[in-house]
């Protein structure tokens, strides 16, 4: 994998077409050169770019799940490995299911009374619900024997701050939630996850939206602003990538979290793939299957770093700010930055990118023509 990462280092600049790519190199050296037929016919740079994208591209790499490395390759290891399978599936998995079931029973038998009986005491209710959600997340983490190391000061509950983290799986949220009851901005999910989102997480102030509904974005923006201003609200957590990435790369951050005018506290999450790949490939796997995969592995090992709060610098645009925070998170978690929007998983790139390439080429032709 190390070589794979190394070989893609040049790919990060692919999005920014530079002039050199389009002009034959010699024409840059002696600039007042006439335009020749050869220069017009030579489309090799564009073709090379296209072929390069066909052979390998940084975007697809972001969402590639890595199959587990088998280690059952010799006669000594094979029985051990088999024993491991028996233990993982035969003992650990049922045990973990039991833990999870008990956790849910305790949770629900406490949550609903609190939710409905303590209506008159909003302060108490909020506090208890917060604790219960934290407890439930701890049960989840225990169900895959999460070995999570938290570095840096714990997040504090105060207004005018928003937490941003890189996103690998929905379990990011669970891992962070067990320490602090964050209010999170999330994609609406179907099935039982949707049910939990609607009934329980609503109580810690989570905000849901649908990626494909453009009018949802406006609503979310407004709710965000309101939430950040509230004194008593749970701290807000945003995954600005907007989609799960395989924890080797970071894709572009959406700027929403960075134009609220408040402190941005970056959180970097890095999973150790020693036992299981925590990346949730939502197109290939349901969340339930993803959890089953985690629950049948030995453990989920991960590091969480709470980084120093950042503020918008004078003269900085929200996008530059977002990039700066992305730099911090990528550097801390050892992730590679790619210039792609994660939503490209769901949509085609806008023609804007193509037009920029066309503009550069057209301008170079026109400029060289004028010199004549």
């Amino acid at each position, binding site marked *: 994998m190390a070589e794979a990462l190394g070989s893609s280092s040049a790919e990060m600049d692919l999005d920014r077409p530079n002039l050199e790519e389009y002009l034959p190199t010699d024409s840059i050296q002696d600039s007042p050169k006439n335009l*020749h*037929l050869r220069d017009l016919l*030579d489309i090799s740079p564009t073709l090379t770019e296209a072929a390069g994208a066909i052979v390998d591209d940084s975007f697809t790499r972001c969402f590639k799940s890595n199959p587990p490395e088998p280690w059952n390759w010799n006669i000594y290891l094979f029985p051990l490995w088999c024993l491991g399978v028996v233990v993982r599936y035969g003992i650990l998995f049922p045990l973990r299911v039991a833990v999870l079931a008990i956790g849910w029973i305790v949770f629900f038998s406490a949550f609903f009374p609190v939710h409905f009986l303590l209506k008159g005491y909003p302060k108490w209710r909020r506090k208890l619900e917060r604790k219960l959600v934290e407890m439930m997340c701890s049960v989840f983490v225990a169900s895959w024997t999460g070995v999570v190391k938290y570095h840096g000061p714990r997040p504090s509950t105060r207004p005018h701050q928003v937490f941003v983290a890189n996103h690998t799986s929905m379990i990011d949220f669970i891992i962070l939630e067990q320490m602090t009851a964050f209010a999170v901005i999330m994609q609406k999910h179907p099935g039982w996850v949707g049910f939990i989102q609607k009934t329980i997480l609503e109580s810690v102030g989570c905000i849901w939206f649908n990626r494909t509904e453009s009018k949802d974005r406006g609503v979310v923006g407004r709710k965000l602003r309101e939430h950040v201003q509230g004194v008593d609200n749970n701290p807000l957590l945003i995954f600005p990538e907007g989609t799960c990435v395989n924890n080797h790369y970071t894709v572009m951050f959406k700027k929403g979290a960075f134009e609220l005018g408040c402190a941005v506290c970056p959180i970097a999450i890095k999973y150790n793939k020693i036992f299981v790949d925590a990346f949730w490939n939502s197109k290939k796997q349901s969340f339930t299957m993803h959890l089953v995969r985690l629950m049948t592995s030995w453990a989920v090992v991960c590091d969480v770093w709470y980084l120093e709060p950042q503020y918008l610098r004078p003269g900085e645009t929200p996008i530059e700010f977002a990039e700066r925070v992305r730099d911090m998170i990528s550097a801390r978690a050892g992730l590679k930055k790619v210039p792609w929007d994660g939503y490209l998983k769901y949509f085609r790139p806008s023609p804007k990118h193509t037009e920029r390439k066309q503009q550069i080429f057209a301008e170079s032709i026109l400029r060289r023509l004028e010199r004549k």
Partner: protein
Amino acid sequence: MGNTSSMLTQYDIEEVQEHCNHAFSQQEIVSLYHRFCQLDRSGSGFISADEFLSVPEFAVNPLAERLLRMLDGLNFKEFVAFLPAFSSRTSLQQKIEFIFKVYDLDCNGKVTFDDVLNVLRDLTGSFMSEQQRQEVLTRVLEEAGYTPDSSLTLPDFMKILGNSDLKMEVEVPID
């Protein structure tokens, strides 16, 4: 169990290698096979235009649409056969042949004024007017000793591009 990194047999690999005139090493072919399977999301054994366009870096290429006419529905053998022009082991002549093919979409062995104009249109989009494009093209053609009515053949392409140093190389990642 064991190392099942490739489902291609040695025989398959050699056959594909033959098919692309040994432009790629066996390892590279295995890598290309993995890539092919990755691009072929539907698992149909060929890559549709839609699947090619799901690679954003390809979709934003000004020539993507033109190339798709050559690429749409390729199986693995054809997929590999498309790529030798970008191998470092391929001669300049073969590279120029490939460029010629990109221009000559109707495969009649001739590249007319309109063929070149079409490619130029793809490359410049709305940033040059149709008139500007025609003017530029007429001018450079006449300078090179052709008229707008004459069509270019492969030997013409060889002559025009033969002494320029084309940098058309793509490295197949091996991991």
